[in-house]
């Protein structure tokens, strides 16, 4: 008997016969109805947030700041200035950007697009920083999520450089975690980011900055 057959037989013996091929939930990801509580669960946890507009953005900004991210507010008009000011403060000259970032970058910055043949990890390590957009942001937890779209790029580019500047649009912000899960696509490689890299491994004292970008700067764009 193969390991697979034997393990499935053990499970079947443990939880009763026939259970391995009964009540199979829909395997079609298109049928995924995110946000609903699990089958048989009477639980009614929140799947729709109450906040919207400025309150929602304020909550996101506050929660990001709580976890030591640097946060700036911008309008479509002031966005270029905010990006420029952030990069100038950081003294970032050479940055890597995803294949289709479509953001106004200042002249003092040399931006290298990560297009095939892609950059090696060692090459990424030599950049002053990375600029990306995001897929979704969660206000309640202060989280931004990248999904590898062309304006966010491969996972490696937002990981290896020590500085990450992320531009988030107001329409991308949701209140709650289940709302974010519903918006995201399981098929994409996802990175959920809540503040800069951190550890609490030494006496449970939070220290920002281990292996991921040690500085996370977020520009929040709303009209």
């Amino acid at each position, binding site marked *: 008997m193969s390991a697979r057959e034997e393990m499935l037989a053990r499970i079947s013996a443990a939880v009763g016969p026939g259970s391995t091929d009964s009540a199979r939930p829909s395997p079609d990801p298109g049928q995924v109805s995110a946000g609903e509580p699990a089958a048989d669960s009477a639980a009614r946890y929140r799947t729709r947030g109450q906040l919207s507009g400025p309150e929602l953005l304020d909550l996101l900004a506050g929660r990001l700041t709580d976890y030591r991210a640097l946060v700036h507010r911008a309008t479509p008009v002031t966005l270029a200035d905010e990006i420029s000011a952030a990069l100038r403060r950081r003294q970032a000259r050479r940055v890597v950007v995803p294949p289709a970032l479509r953001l106004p970058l200042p002249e003092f910055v040399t931006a290298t697009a990560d297009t095939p043949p892609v950059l090696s990890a060692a090459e990424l390590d030599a950049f002053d920083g990375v600029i990306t957009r995001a897929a979704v942001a969660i206000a309640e937890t202060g989280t931004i999520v990248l999904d590898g779209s062309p304006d966010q790029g491969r996972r490696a580019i937002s*990981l290896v450089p020590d500085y990450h500047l992320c531009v988030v649009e107001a329409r991308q912000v949701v209140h709650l975690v289940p709302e974010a*899960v519903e918006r995201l696509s399981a098929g994409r490689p996802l990175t959920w980011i809540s503040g800069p890299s951190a550890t609490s491994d030494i006496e449970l004292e939070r220290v920002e900055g281990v292996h991921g970008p040690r500085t996370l700067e977020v520009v929040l764009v709303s009209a």
Partner: protein
Amino acid sequence: MRTFLGLPAPRRSLPEPAYAPRGVGHLRASQEFPVAARRALSDTQLRRNLGKATATIRAKRAAVVGEVPDWEELRSAGQAIKAATMANLGGYLEQLEAAVTARGGTVHWARDAIEANNIVTRLVQAAGATEVVKVKSLATDEIGLNDALAAAGIAAYETDLAELIVQLGRDRPSHILVPAIHRNRTEIRDIFVAEMGDADPGLTDDPAALAEAARRHLRRKFLSATVGISGANFAVAETGTLCVVESEGNGRMCVTLPRTLITVMGIEKVIPRWSDLGVFLQLLPRSSTGERMNPYTSMWTGVTPGDGPQSVHLVLLDNGRTAALADPVGRAALHCIRCSACLNVCPVYERTGGHAYGSVYPGPIGAVLSPQLTGVEDNASLPYASSLCGACYQVCPVKIDIPALLVHLRARHVELQRSARRVPSAEAITMAAASWVMADPVRFAAAQAASRSGRLLGSRGKISALPPPLAAWTRARDAPVPPAQTFRQWWRSEHRDSDRDAQ
């Protein structure tokens, strides 16, 4: 109500439970808990470190749990999802396998630690690597993967800061979340300077400086590694998505930069639906690190062309889990999402630390999980390593009734002992005698009156040493001195008048 007819119970023709094999991995203690605990309790530095750390994390958790208005609903949802998963575990695993395979990943099934170690070793060798980088993973620690890889000439580098501290210190993890919780900053600084090889001798014990030293030490490894090994916090059956929750970015490095990624996952980590993540990604971080969200969570589904590892493997591990599943009560221990909240609130864990439990799973959840994975006989003292105060149940994000499981396993242990020996144990005789005495009011009153002779043994309200065979009780605790008056005597003296009135 069962009727005892005096006939031996018919043997049920179930297959022998497949426990985690002996001689491999880290599930069994070399010493019984009371012995190991006594040693830990005499280590004052350890107790100071643990007291400080657990108090800190308890306060953080309480604060972030308190701000969630639907926390109890989330706990109930988490519990319901896990129970539904266990009821159809085989189906979900097959679904997971199909989804991962459809996205270009390869799924392997491992009956036990030995088989899992062999699979991983073969995969690393096939990738032509002699070094691997690892994300903190309890499953790989459980099966002793690093030892197996070392035996095959493969160096495994732990990249989580706490795991690095443990590995460099040739130590064992003592906490699910913070494996080096038993070390304070000065001890960690000394380990780094002595063992890292590239640490600055002038390194201070400032946690930020220590984190910086770890960053520099591991950077080169990350950028050159060709094989990464991880565990998984969740695996979504309907989509084939694997999820790793972490803080430092070492996890992102390990699951993103190498060409080959091997994930070892206990079969109980599967969750049915994508939307279930909306529950668990709220429950886990707040219960675990006491944060609204952990800094980094990575999710990947098979192979993504052009992004991350192009050779992706998933090893599904049994190693005693199906044996736990076979116990309809005990299987709730498989619901655990490894947050470690129960460790931090446990008055026993807080004083003894994790090493005393002798398993990679310490604390209250370890006391109910380890004996089920190994068979109760192999970790017989663990179900007793608790005062049954119930704090663990209150904080558990998936509402595992750990105190009830502890009592259940104690009963199983007693049953096993009874069936294994011909002569009844002292405890069994005592219980039978107590049952006979308590069944009759006259006998009970006589026994109570007799118990007052115990007053001769004690002073200041307590007895510190009882004669054998009762000495086992007072070895670790005091027994109260029996009162001068029994309750019935007191009642009679207080209520003479009313008794008369009633008549």
